[in-house]
């Protein structure tokens, strides 16, 4: 499933952070402003109280009925002057007849007619007059509210605009990606030409570079595949052509002997085609194999001995002497079926390429934590420059000078190589003992110790 839209995620993140930051600012401002406003207004209250007290004895003369309403907000403030704290002398129009607050010194809070008031009380020096100055708390709150509102409204207005801007910005920022997509969508499967990394912005350039590298690898794999297919076609056609040719020769033969020879050729050709098909199938299966099941403990010595027993009659018939040198038990972790194919291919190859009277020496040993399987022959060997190409698919050796060359499929060692890969084993090719022939060494890791 595709990840959520990049654009939506960006908008959510940016808007979320913006709102959070703004709210934080709002809360901080609210607290600060409320505190500052409190102090400032308290100062005013105290100041007002002090002003009233400063009238001293004149307080008696103030005509309470004539304290004018100078400002509409004056309703929110009130004051009282009490003689000796008990007789109400002067008060503002909106002040009640009772004391604004029972507290006689400093700030206090009181409720009158459903309104909360902040009250400041003070005595004059002679404790003759008690002055109480009050202010509706709602007046203070409305100041803070107005301030916070003025902070929040722009945010509410800005959020959709910000969202739209991000939407557009991200959209235009993603344009190179869309162009890339269009370019890739327009391609057919075979088109692997590299993308132009210069046309991508810095953030996308690495992606383009990686894509190009991927294209290159796919191209290489495809070329390898094509070559392999061509080789396989070649290898399949040749025995079929031989079959067809021998059949035609048999049909046109004038003598029984010539016909028989051609018919023998057909039989041999069919056997070879079958063997080739078998090997190609094996290789195809191995190619798709990903270390099939759990490996088992395999006693390599016994496995090789069984394979040798199977191949010995053919070697005897060819007068090639086969010797097995497997002293101690060597047990590895591996796939017995595949290891048997590996051993069979190596030994079969050796017998095949060794002329009559030659020797094939097979040894199984433990060495440095690995099992070492060596198949050496004293046949014609392989020129040093060809050693590196052994194991390449369909690569066949030149016939030994003068000798009747064996007709392999050119796949045997490829199969060995692939099975070795599946066992994380190494295959090494070298000259045989005394520089004669060929010695193939397979180093299998995962020695399981003596069973």
């Amino acid at each position: 499933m595709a990840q959520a839209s990049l654009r939506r995620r960006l908008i959510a993140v940016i808007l979320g952070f913006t709102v959070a930051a703004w709210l934080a600012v709002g809360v901080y401002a609210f607290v600060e402003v409320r505190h500052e406003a409190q102090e400032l207004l308290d100062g005013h209250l105290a100041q007002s109280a002090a002003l009233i007290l400063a009238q001293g004895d004149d307080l008696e003369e103030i005509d309470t009925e004539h304290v004018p309403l100078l400002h509409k907000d004056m309703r929110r403030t009130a004051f009282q002057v009490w003689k000796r704290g008990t007789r109400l002398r002067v008060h503002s129009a909106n002040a009640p007849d009772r004391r604004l607050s029972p507290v006689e010194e400093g700030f206090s809070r009181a409720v009158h007619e459903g309104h909360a008031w902040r009250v400041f009380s003070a005595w004059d020096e002679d404790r003759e007059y008690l002055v109480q100055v009050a202010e509706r708390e709602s007046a203070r709150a409305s100041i803070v509210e107005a301030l916070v509102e003025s902070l929040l409204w722009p945010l509410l207005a800005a959020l959709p605009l910000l969202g739209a801007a991000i939407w557009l910005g991200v959209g235009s920022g993603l344009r190179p990606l869309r162009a890339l997509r269009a370019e890739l969508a327009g391609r057919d499967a075979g088109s692997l030409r590299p993308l132009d990394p210069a046309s991508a912005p810095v953030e996308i350039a690495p992606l383009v570079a990686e894509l190009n590298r991927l294209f290159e690898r796919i191209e290489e794999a495809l070329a390898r595949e094509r070559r392999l297919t061509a080789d396989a076609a070649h290898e399949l056609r040749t025995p079929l052509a031989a079959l067809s040719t021998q059949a035609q020769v048999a049909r046109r033969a004038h003598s029984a002997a010539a016909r028989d020879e051609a018919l023998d050729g057909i039989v041999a050709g069919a056997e070879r085609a079958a063997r080739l098909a078998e090997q190609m199938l094996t290789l195809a299966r191995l190619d798709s194999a990903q270390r099939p099941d759990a490996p088992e403990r395999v006693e390599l010595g016994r496995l090789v001995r069984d394979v040798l027993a199977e191949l010995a009659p053919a070697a005897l018939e060819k007068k090639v002497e086969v010797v097995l040198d497997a002293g101690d038990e060597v047990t590895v972790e591996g796939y017995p079926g595949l290891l048997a194919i590996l051993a069979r291919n190596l030994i079969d190859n050796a017998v095949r390429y060794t002329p009559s009277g030659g020797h094939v020496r097979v040894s199984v040993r433990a060495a440095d934590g690995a099992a070492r399987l060596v198949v050496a022959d004293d046949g014609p060997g392989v020129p040093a420059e060809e050693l590196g190409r052994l194991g390449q698919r369909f690569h066949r050796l030149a016939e030994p000078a003068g000798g009747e060359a064996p007709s392999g499929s050119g796949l045997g060692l490829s199969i060995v190589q692939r099975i070795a890969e599946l066992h994380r084993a190494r295959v090494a090719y070298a000259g045989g003992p005394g520089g004669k022939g060929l010695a193939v060494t397979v180093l299998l890791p995962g020695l399981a110790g003596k069973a």
Partner: protein
Amino acid sequence: MRILVVEDDPLLGRGTQAGLEQSGFAADWVRDGAAADAALAATPYHAVVLDLGLPRLDGLALLARLRARRDRTPVLILTARDAVEDRVKGLDAGADDYMVKPFRIEELAARLRALVRRAHGAAGPALVAAGVTLDPAAHTVAFQGRSVELPAREFEVLRELMLNAGRVLTREHLQERLYRWGEEVESNAIDVHIHHLRRKLAPEVIRTIRGVGYLLPREPA
């Protein structure tokens, strides 16, 4: 006609050789490029059937070497590689024809006959000289309108002379062009064939150039 088959697959090589022999060719078979190079340097072949994927010396390399030393022997590439690029590469390297395996022996034989014919500058399938008409494909000969039956070897000698009408051919040349390696050849075999041909056609059709060889004139004597 003598053909060199270059094919590394023993079964196919042997079969191609046998099939060509059945079609009336003298075919030699070698299994690698180096051996083919040596054979071509030593023996004049009418044509070469060449596989491409050869050990020791690759088919195309052999072809390049052949053309580099101005050897114009017609070469027919017979390979399992059927891709257009392979065909183009082969023909551009100097091959005269290209066939893909598997193949029919009849077609291979016909293409070889056509290659040899073209190499000798004849467009039609039948060779005509000195009143003799020889059809290599149908294996028929007529002299002055009269059909003449010829055994295979005599037919081959006559064809070689007609292919080279107006030119003197040595006894060795005829021998090399007629017999493959390892065949038992009597020292006077060619003379015997010539003798029989003169009897069946007319004595003056083949002239003896003393100490050099034989010649079939372009025009009737």
